């Protein structure tokens, strides 16, 4: 569904990513790990049509990302929840869909908030929600767009470990039936392994792909996996790719 070919993005003074080739299948959950400043956000923005490539090209179902964006196919979730402080949880979820020019579907929004465990907080304002709850609203908001491409930039980065594990499990459950393609950026290797169908390691300045890992772990992913041997091994391998001296490029 997504094809990234030789992507390079440069800003005035720095090159953020260089020579990135990547293919992502429909409904795939792809996680991206890498140290700070290796261009993860930049890569995500390029795929979402928010950042023009300097070199190379990106195709989503054969079309440039701008087309997918204009068609309302792209949902974004950031580290900060970016909820509007003057709108309720429900208001925030329906607002973005309306702005995107899609027909209103309030029952759908209610169902989604219910699915992320917030049925009792429809009328709550962001300041009344915990960080984890606010992030759930942000996820519901992105899903309510009926986007088939979800770009998540460290969505659980500001949350405590218990909440992020919990949310990760829920997110995966929610997405399993939806055929949503997900690009999920994280700093946490265990999270990347737990959630990903595949995991990409990005590193260096400018950022390049250091390795791609096919995570053949049992489905559905459940918290018991955290103690699983294979899981641990994958975490080890991904860590190795992140931390070893730069290996010769293939």
């Amino acid at each position, binding site marked *: 569904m997504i094809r990234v070919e030789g992507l390079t993005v440069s800003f005035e003074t720095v090159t953020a990513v260089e020579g990135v080739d990547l293919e992502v299948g429909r409904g795939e959950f792809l996680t991206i790990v890498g140290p700070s400043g290796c261009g993860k956000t930049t890569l995500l923005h390029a795929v979402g*049509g928010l950042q023009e490539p300097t070199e190379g090209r990106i195709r989503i179902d054969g079309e440039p990302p701008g087309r997918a*964006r204009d068609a*309302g196919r*792209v949902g*974004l979730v950031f580290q900060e929840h*970016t909820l509007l*402080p003057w709108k309720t949880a429900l208001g925030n979820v329906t607002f973005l869909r309306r702005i*995107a020019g899609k027909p209103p579907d309030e029952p759908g929004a209610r169902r989604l908030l219910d699915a992320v465990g917030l049925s009792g907080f429809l009328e709550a304002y962001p*300041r009344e929600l915990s960080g984890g709850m606010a992030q759930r609203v942000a996820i519901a908001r992105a899903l309510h767009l009926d986007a088939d491409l979800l770009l998540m930039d460290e969505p659980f980065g500001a949350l405590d470990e218990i909440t992020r594990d919990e949310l990760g499990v829920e997110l995966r459950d929610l997405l399993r039936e939806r055929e949503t393609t997900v690009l999920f950026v994280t700093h946490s290797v265990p999270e990347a392994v737990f959630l990903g169908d595949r995991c990409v390691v990005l590193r260096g300045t400018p950022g390049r792909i250091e390795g791609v890992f096919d995570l053949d772990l049992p489905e559905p992913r459940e918290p018991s996996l955290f103690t699983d041997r294979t899981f641990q091994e994958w975490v080890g391998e991904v860590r190795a790719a992140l931390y070893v001296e730069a290996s010769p490029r293939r």
Partner: protein
Amino acid sequence: MNAARGVRSGDLLYPTVALAAGIALWWTLSVALAIPSFLLPSPDEVAAQLVGNPRLYLVNALATVEKVVVGGAVGTAAGFGFGLVVGTIPLARRALYPYLVTVRVLPKIAIAPVLLIYLGTGFTTAVVFVALVTFFPLVVSTAAGLSRTPEPQLDLLRSVNAGPIDTLVRVRLPYALPDVFAGLKQSVTLAVVGAVVAEWVVARRGLGYLILLGMENLRTDIMIAALSVLVVVGLSCYGGVVLCQRAIVRRFPVTGTEP
């Protein structure tokens, strides 16, 4: 005032006591030292002046309020509109913002004589002058407020291809409200100053004119009475803006904003 609004009873009590003490001191001094009332009238003389001529003070207070309201409305509306342009059109911002900041160091009062030449000595001159002093704070604060929207929020809006009007009206403006109100509060204070200055220069009515009249006739009681009415006028105008802000902040509670 109640605790729910974050105002403790002492917040009102102590200043009231301080005011009473101040007036008592003033009274005692003027009686004990037998200060002649053309130098410093006693509080009761000022009060008598006020109570004895209610129409005089009311009419002149209204004349001042009229200039504040009309001039302030024109000036802040224009300032807000201009701020929108500067805040939303990058080219306009880059070209004009340096001047807007520079103009701040110019005392607007110095413009009054210039206006006199172009517009004569009438009501219009006073209104234009008030409008002028209230204009700049609103331009700067509106333009600054429009840049308050968090960058990720704008990315999100771009990712769903949001239209510029939606983005401006539904997101950027609400985020700008705290700044806009900060500008309005500055403007309303300046508007009262502006109205009084204008009355010194051009008017035949208003509290500023009354103060001037009191001075020319060595009537300190009239001057102090007019000044106290001016304080009430100033506070009411400021209070009006604060009430307005409270109502709107309740509807658009942008975090980090206290009324």
